[in-house]
């Protein structure tokens, strides 16, 4: 058989990063930012995220919340990502992001409101420029590219420092055109945006291997001509280094990057899901061995930075934080029915006055639907 002579035209590598191995042992010296205080802060936030998720799932079980997506087992990604942003950066999240929301200053009561069927939960009081939780898969990647354009534009027009947009998604999202279109645009326009993929191995019931034939998710960046890195997503230090490094380059005008953070979804997809239908208890049990909180706990204790006493204090503190948030959430007055018109447009168009009046009159008359 004829074999032609081919010339090498281009070559690409994908690398992998880890600081803390599955047992929580450092595999290499930690970066400067990973001070004892920083590690303790991350540890606290991961615990808080887990507590919020746990309570939210219970609230759903008792009918007080709607469908809820827990981030159980993936807390390192959210916390590391949320922590890497500066206040003026813009975060464009997907839905499995409790840790990141907490880091961005989103209130626990806002998270509960959102999943409790109340739009006010997306009116983040302390993260006024961040995008809301995005449900249609991968669409937020394009919003992030647009946000990054706006940040770049402002920087160029006004000479202010370049800020960065960071967006997150699951690995399932990387099959959707939006994800690729966003990376491609970010590449060619050199936009200051970092794409973080939470590769938790499952998209509801579809395993990573049925999602794409690629060896890594990271290599998808090669299609857009942008740099990529694969990291251990249950290692908060590795995720943090990767996001910070990518953001530093973006801030420096060097353009976008993709980070694949490998983790595992230890919970059902949402409270509406029953993962036992499609994956084995053994697989789950194995994944529990390398989950991020246990790992960081082991490292902190091995360094003498953590103890049972500290843990008890923390548990107490977090329980109080959670209770206070629940109180705030529960004591919020319900929105009036006419709220469905109030933010449709900046000003209610005349053509809708009649419908508005109808609704208000029905409410006054006590009509239920």
């Amino acid at each position, binding site marked *: 058989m004829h074999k032609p002579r081919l010339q090498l035209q281009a070559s690409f590598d994908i690398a992998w990063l880890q600081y803390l191995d599955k047992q929580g042992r450092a595999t290499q010296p930690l970066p400067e930012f990973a001070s004892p205080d920083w590690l303790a802060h991350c540890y606290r936030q991961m615990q808080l995220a887990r507590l919020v998720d746990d309570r939210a799932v219970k609230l759903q079980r008792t009918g007080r919340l709607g469908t809820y997506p827990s981030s159980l087992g993936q807390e390192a990604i959210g916390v590391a990502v949320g922590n890497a942003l500066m206040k003026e950066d813009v975060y464009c999240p997907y839905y499995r992001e409790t840790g990141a929301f907490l880091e961005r200053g989103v209130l626990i009561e806002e998270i509960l409101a959102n999943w409790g069927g109340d739009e006010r939960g997306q009116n983040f009081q302390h993260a006024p420029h961040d995008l809301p939780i995005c*449900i249609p898969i991968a669409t937020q990647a394009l919003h992030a590219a647009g946000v990054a354009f706006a940040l770049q534009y402002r920087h160029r027009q006004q000479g202010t420092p370049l800020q960065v947009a960071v967006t997150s998604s699951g690995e399932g999202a990387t099959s959707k055109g939006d994800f690729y279109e966003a990376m491609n645009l970010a590449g060619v326009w050199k936009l200051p945006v970092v794409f973080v993929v939470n590769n938790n191995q499952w998209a509801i*019931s579809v395993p990573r291997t049925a999602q794409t034939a690629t060896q890594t998710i990271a290599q998808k960046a090669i299609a857009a001509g942008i740099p990529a890195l694969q990291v251990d997503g249950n290692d908060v230090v590795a995720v943090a280094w990767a996001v910070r490094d990518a953001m530093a380059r973006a801030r420096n005008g060097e353009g976008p990057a993709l980070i694949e953070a490998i983790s595992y979804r230890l919970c059902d997809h949402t409270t509406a899901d029953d993962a036992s239908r499609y994956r084995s208890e053994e697989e789950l049990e194995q994944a529990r061995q390398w989950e991020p909180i246990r790992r960081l706990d082991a490292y902190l204790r091995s360094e003498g930075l953590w103890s049972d006493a500290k843990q008890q204090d923390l548990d107490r503190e977090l329980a109080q934080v959670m209770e206070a948030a629940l109180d705030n959430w529960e004591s919020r007055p319900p929105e009036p029915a006419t709220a469905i018109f109030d933010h449709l447009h900046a000003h209610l168009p005349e053509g809708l006055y009649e419908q508005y009046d109808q609704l208000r009159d029905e409410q006054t008359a006590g009509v239920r639907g």
Partner: protein
Amino acid sequence: MVEENSAITLVEAVNQALAYALANDPQVVLFGQDIGANGGVFRATDGLQQRFGPERVLDTPLAENMIAGIAVGMASQGLRPIAEFQFMGFIYPALDHILSHAARMRNRTRGRLSCPIVYRAPYGSGIHAPEHHSESTEAIFAHVPGLRVVVPSSPARAYGLLLAAIRDPDPVLFLEPKRIYRAAKQPVPDDGEALPLDRAFVLREGRDLTLIAWGASVKETLAAAEQLSTEGIEAEVIDPATLKPLDIHSIIDSLEKTHCCVVVHEAARFGGLGAEIAAQIQEYAFDLLEAPVQRVTGYDTVMPYYQLENVYLPGVERILAGARAALGYSREGRQ
């Protein structure tokens, strides 16, 4: 597996029709997100992958545009693809392939290639789901020439209409009202008998007023009719079932008796199907009408998160108000 003649729910009837089609037509293939081992997030495809194998019942990667587009290619080569969108709120990326290709391939090639595809999606609100999980945008698709839009409102109609949609030589959007997926049970013989497309169903006979509704709203509409009946008003309830092409003649027939009409739908009012129905009624039955066709619909707002969902949805009381407006108008007579 569902037993013959035992009472089943609407979602079980969907499952039964899919199983029947898979068993009886080797060209039928099913695909979508989480329809395999998981059996679909509503269990509409429960057990089908186990029974018919992963070559005929497939989980796809996560991309609705892709799901719609590959169906076109499959159908062009003689397969009978049945594609599931997990929720109607995620169908929008698929509009291009549905509108530009599935609905046009036969016309474009002057009959050489065709697209006998069924696009299925759970639709409507009322299950306390998150944002985007409660959409009723059938009107967008009903405007597309070449595309049929079908909505069942009972287990038996789900079974018979889905089989008809699968056998139809052209593309059908089959919208399944998820609020009533498990609302009622009914014996549905697994006999492979299709129900006719393009035909309305008269669900209740009456002489005083015509109520038109489809999907989950049929439930509240029938309840309103019962309430009216206690007041001596007999409403005829019509379910068009195939929203496009619409069986306007059954509706006009009813108006010959009743002279007034209310259309009910969850979707936003402006440009909803109610507008088309009202427009056709006044075209075909202008002289019969004693009152304007009333539309009892969702508001022209974004479908709210679930706390305010009931404010948005047309319920029994709003349907009754619409009926009374129509009847009151009729009684006063034309000025």
